[in-house]
């Protein structure tokens, strides 16, 4: 069986679809499949973009009246499966709402879900790839039962490539009654102030870990990142410790980054962290432990005290600017 029909959940984000959504559309099309997309909120205003990247139809769940997207979008997809038949696969981005929709849909349709996918191949059927043990090994998997298989894909797994397609045809899709399950509502949204490039998009990322010793020292990371026109990142350890917000976290449970250079300061290199930054073009590590696992993947390592090396680096960068 070859793959002929893929549905992609595309997430609205201000005036555009999210980059991961476009990555999924691009890859779904490259598998030779007919691609349909599903969106909500003001996502339908991006029908031209969905079409450009390969979707012929854009199913629009519409305004969610404050509801979290998980339940209404999953119920709308389940209704589409009922009325149109199951596609070969449904792809979703790894994001807060993407995972919610996937989980709801899986239980609603009674179909399994594969998550943390970083590769999708057509081998006479869909084969998924998943990094394990910090990305040192790759698991290949496939669905064995009745479809549709639900696949949640990590950011930056595929390139964004325009198909120069015509705008997608918008078709309205209803969630129907979401009952008690749909009762959670968003009251207000708080946006954290941020300057400089976004962590996922920055060409330079300077990240700090437990080796910084205390929360105040994270200011050094922010300063170095700013001087390099980059973004500050963090290991899970210091996010859990409350030093920096979760939005800074790089790794399995945080963001995937692939900058030109990733500078890891006082980060030992837990597998949890490495899976999120191993795809960086260059990796620089500063750590006082010569045996820290981070050095095994670093192109350039300095065994030294981050409290001495980092301030010196900041001075050197200032002297150049």
């Amino acid at each position: 069986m070859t793959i002929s029909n893929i549905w992609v959940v595309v997430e609205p984000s201000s005036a555009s679809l999210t980059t991961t959504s476009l990555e999924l559309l691009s890859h779904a099309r490259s598998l030779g499949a007919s691609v349909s997309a599903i969106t909500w909120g003001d996502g339908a205003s991006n029908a031209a973009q969905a079409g450009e990247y390969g979707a012929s139809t854009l199913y629009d769940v519409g305004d969610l009246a404050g509801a979290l997207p998980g339940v209404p979008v999953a119920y709308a997809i389940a209704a589409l499966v009922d009325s149109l038949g199951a596609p070969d696969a449904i792809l979703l981005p790894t994001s807060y709402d993407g995972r919610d929709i996937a989980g709801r849909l899986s239980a609603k349709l009674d179909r399994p879900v594969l998550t943390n996918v970083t590769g999708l191949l057509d081998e006479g059927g869909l084969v998924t790839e998943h990094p394990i043990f910090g990305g040192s090994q790759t698991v290949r998997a496939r669905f064995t039962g009745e479809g549709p298989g639900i696949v949640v894909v990590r950011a930056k797994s595929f390139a964004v490539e325009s198909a120069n397609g015509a705008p997608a045809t918008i078709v309205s899709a209803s969630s129907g009654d979401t009952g008690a399950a749909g009762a959670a509502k968003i009251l207000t949204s708080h946006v954290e102030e941020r300057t400089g490039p976004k962590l996922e998009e920055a060409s330079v990322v300077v990240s700090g870990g437990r080796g910084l010793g205390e929360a105040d020292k994270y200011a050094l990371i922010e300063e170095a990142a700013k001087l390099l026109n980059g973004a500050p990142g963090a290991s899970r350890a210091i996010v859990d410790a409350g030093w920096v917000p979760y939005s800074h976290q790089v790794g399995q449970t945080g963001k995937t980054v692939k900058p030109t250079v990733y500078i890891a300061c006082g980060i030992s290199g837990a597998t949890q962290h490495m899976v999120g930054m191993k795809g960086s073009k260059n990796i620089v590590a500063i750590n006082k432990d010569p045996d820290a696992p981070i050095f095994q993947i670093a192109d350039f390592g300095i065994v030294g005290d981050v409290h001495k090396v980092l301030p010196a680096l900041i001075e050197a960068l200032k002297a150049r600017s």
Partner: protein
Amino acid sequence: MNIVVCVKQIPDPAAPQSLDASFNLDRSGKLILDEADTYGVEMALQLVDKAGSGEVTVVSMGSGTDLAGVRNALAMGAAKAVIVSDESLRGTDALGTAKVLAKVIEGINPDLVLCATESSDGYTGTTPVQLAELLSLPSITFAKAITVDGETLKVERQTESGYDEVVSPLPALVSVTAGVVEPRYASFKGIMAAKSKPVETLSAAELGLEGVTGRAGARQEITAVVAAESREAGEKYVDEGDGAQKIVAFLESIKVL
């Protein structure tokens, strides 16, 4: 207020990990309470405390007989535990796990179900929401703060750009991030008390769930495990006061500077 916290006993993440011959994670060593679950246990204890009545029940599924991790949750202060454990559960996927947990939780009928956002060993990250759907409950994932006011739940849910304030009626399910609260360490008194707290152990068969669990119920299979493209270690220098200059030179060589 009665709260169920779903917890998982996992192989120590600090120990080397491997897959067995059938591509399942090797769970033969000592199992511990997933650290990600300690936040839910702590949050539940604080919410029950604040409500002034009720109790915390820990629910767990696994294939082993080691209960040290669950005892740890009891030592922190949970009142009792229900464990679904038998060898036939090995290889159960996220949806199968949710079906098992749902069956147990239906019998408890709590006001609130708490989970971690994902386990630290399998990190599928969908079980909480699958569970909520099976229980017909509203769910709020990625909570960084939780308050309960009467019958209303208020949660700060992480988003890409900050957080949303979300409200929901109870009963509901919430998945919590690390850092939602600071988990307590079990006291000596707690550890001693945990030894006599009730732990009910059930099998998949007793729940009538044979067939939907285990490898057969997963409806997915691993076809191969291959070595990933590896990165080679590059140059490494011991800082002798020139470390920063060396980094600058490296950044120049890759044209970042």
